[in-house]
């Protein structure tokens, strides 16, 4: 298992990707699984940064592999819970000229992951991402 806390800032992304690369190397993840996990982590991390401006404290990232499944958790202390599993994107029916990318990242991540869960307990918001590895 690997854990690391990151400053709540888009500039942290380089370090976040470095963390993910070390985890992928250690667990010998294939290129596809690695891409999916990187993308999902980036989308949820940037969401936390974007909607958590002014909040103190960092974002804790935890990655673990158990057999053929990888689980990544993103945790933050916040008084404002936001259940990402309830976020929907319906822009596909919007005319091209009016289409905006909002919500797209969460949609892509959900489609590529095998599991997405959210819980909020005692001021801690936690997003759990699951990806089954191809054997």
């Amino acid at each position, binding site marked *: 298992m690997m854990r690391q806390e990151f400053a709540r800032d888009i500039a942290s*992304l380089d370090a976040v990707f470095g963390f993910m690369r070390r985890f992928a190397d250690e667990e010998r993840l294939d290129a596809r699984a690695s891409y999916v996990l*990187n993308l999902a982590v*980036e989308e949820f991390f*940037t969401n936390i940064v974007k909607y958590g401006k002014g909040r103190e404290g960092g974002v804790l990232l935890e990655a673990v592999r158990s057999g053929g499944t990888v689980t990544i958790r993103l945790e933050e202390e916040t008084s404002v819970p936001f259940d990402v599993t309830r976020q929907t994107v319906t822009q596909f029916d919007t005319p091209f000229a009016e*289409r905006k990318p909002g919500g797209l*990242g969460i*949609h*892509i991540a959900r489609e590529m992951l095998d599991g997405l869960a959210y819980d909020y307990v005692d001021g801690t918001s936690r997003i759990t991402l699951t990806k089954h590895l191809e054997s």
Partner: protein
Amino acid sequence: MFSISVNDEGIVVLTGRFDASQTDRAREVFAGLRNSAVVDFRDLDYISSAGLGVLLATQQRLKKDGNAIKLVHMNRMVRDVFKIARFDLIFEIE
């Protein structure tokens, strides 16, 4: 590591990882496009929704004048991201 440049033939060349920390730089280059152009993805390893947003805004701006960007040489994973986002209906992808 991400880089974006326009080569002598006017092709926009993307390299590396196009993530949310790179959008300002990419927007600057795409803002310079006035006509239809090709964007070469051959050396692009990764793109997220942040990169898609920059491309979408560029396509919307160019289409107003009847122009467009065409995307070429995408790797399989990047192409999958475009399909899931249904951006394969917005861009010509070769």
